[in-house]
């Protein structure tokens, strides 16, 4: 199909090699999470003490943990909880943050001043500390952690949205639309938000990575996701395995966390239009040749 091909080409061009690689990795992780019951080789909570700390084998591709649960299956099911939390956090903060940011950028003046100061205030609160306090008040669990982090993440997303929207707001095309009699709601949603969508999506991807990391840290501390539930953060905290030298039990979920966060950060930066750092970019062959050429000319002179 031609259109599929051209979409692929455009995506490739927009995201670049690093972006495409990140996207591919995230798609795999997401598919694994969604299709967990289908792709996981075993029940993640089925323990068989005979298999405790079994090494990788045909029965357990990555081996089994201290009570004989299949590690690969736990990683696959763990993707579910590990991705669900950050998704909720980013979703809630966008839902609250975007309207506030758009209102502030549209009206400017004191409205903008108040909203901006509130963002600054929340931004100044460390998210993890807020989460720990919430957990201390309401008891450990995914819900209080998600609620606390959702609030903490609002300014992280909304400040960027506000800045991008303000840039659009002073653009003459917005004036032209206002002169055409269009109202604030239509202009901000149909035009401004649409034009800053890449920035929003990119920043959301980056926030997703950070939220995943924060939640994993809380789970590691035993404050968010609770023990029998498979979760990467909880799995990293399996100090028993570490002490006994079964490093794969801890390393595998850790690597997944790092790779997912990295992929989200890279993809987010590429979506918001940031160029990859120089060492990741291929320079056009012609320019390299040209430079060589110039040096020779210079040396000859």
């Amino acid at each position: 199909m031609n259109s599929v091909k051209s979409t692929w080409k455009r995506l490739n061009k927009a995201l670049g090699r690093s972006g495409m690689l990140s996207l591919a990795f995230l798609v795999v992780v997401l598919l694994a999470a969604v299709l967990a019951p289908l792709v996981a080789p075993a029940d993640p909570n089925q323990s068989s003490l005979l298999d405790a700390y079994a090494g990788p084998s045909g029965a357990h591709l990555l081996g089994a943990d201290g009570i004989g649960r299949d590690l690969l299956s736990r990683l696959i099911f763990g993707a579910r909880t590990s991705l669900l939390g950050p998704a909720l956090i980013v979703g809630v903060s966008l839902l609250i943050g975007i309207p506030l940011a758009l209102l502030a950028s549209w009206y400017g003046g004191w409205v903008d001043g108040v909203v901006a100061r509130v963002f600054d205030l929340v931004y100044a609160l460390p998210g993890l500390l807020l989460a720990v306090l919430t957990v201390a008040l309401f008891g450990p669990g995914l819900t209080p952690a998600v609620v606390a982090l959702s609030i903490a993440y609002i300014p992280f997303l909304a400040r960027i949205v506000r800045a991008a929207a303000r840039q659009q707001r002073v653009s003459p095309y917005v004036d032209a639309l206002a002169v055409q009699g269009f109202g604030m709601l239509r202009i901000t949603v149909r035009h401004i938000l649409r034009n800053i969508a890449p920035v929003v999506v990119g920043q959301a991807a980056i926030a997703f990575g950070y939220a995943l990391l924060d939640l994993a840290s809380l789970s590691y501390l035993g404050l968010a996701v609770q023990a029998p539930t498979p979760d990467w953060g909880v799995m990293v905290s399996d100090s028993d395995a570490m002490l006994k030298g079964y490093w794969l039990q801890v390393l595998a979920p850790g690597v997944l966390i790092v790779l997912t966060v990295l992929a989200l950060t890279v993809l987010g930066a590429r979506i918001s239009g940031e160029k990859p750092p120089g060492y990741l970019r291929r320079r056009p062959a012609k320019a390299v040749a040209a430079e060589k050429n110039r040096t020779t000319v210079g040396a000859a002179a």
Partner: protein
Amino acid sequence: MNAVDAQANAVEVRGLNKFFKAHHAVVDVDFDVPAGGSLGIVGESGSGKTTIARMLVGLERPTSGTIAVTGRDRSRPARGARERGRRARELQIVFQDPYTSLDPSQSARAAIEEVLRHHGRDLSLTQELVDQVGLTERQASARPRDLSGGQRQRVAIARALAASPKVLVLDEAVSALDVSIQAQVLNLLADIRAETGIAYLLISHDLAVVRQLCDTVLVLRRGRVVEQGQCERVLDAPAEDYTRALREAVPVPGWSVNA
């Protein structure tokens, strides 16, 4: 349209003032644009010409004075969507910078259709407008970033005309264009006025452009009217020193750099 409307002025401005704190941007400005007429407002930076344009379209609120377009007052902000829509169908604007005055994610066709739909007009007019401003099929479907400055300005003109306004404010609308493109757009604007009987209010620093497109001219300096009248009279026999200085500063054949 009845006979009374046809004779009424398209724009009537009386005692217009705009103060930004202590700064007097526009001071006691009066002018008329006859129905189907064309007035040029000429001035240098800080003359207040752009502030006048912004007050006319409702992007700035006058400190005092009245603005009436096709006989209807618009000195105060519009209340409600209906009034906003009505004002939009009276007067439209084309801005200077063709690179920022279009929504980057909208093709010409989409932008025109959005306006037509908003004003309850027939969507089949899109093609007419595209043809009227001289855009090709391909250009009409392209995003702004794939168009040249002149083509974008044609899109902006078509979008303004989609509201079928009686008056079009051209805020330095040809200043940013290459000379050869500027001529095309000036010819286009002259054609549109001849065809539709729309009135123009051209804000410009360029006396030659004003002369080409306007019947009357108003010279503005530091927010005040220096002189106004027919183009030939004001430009060929200026009554004021400032107008004369403006005129003589324009490089023409035989112009010497040392005044």
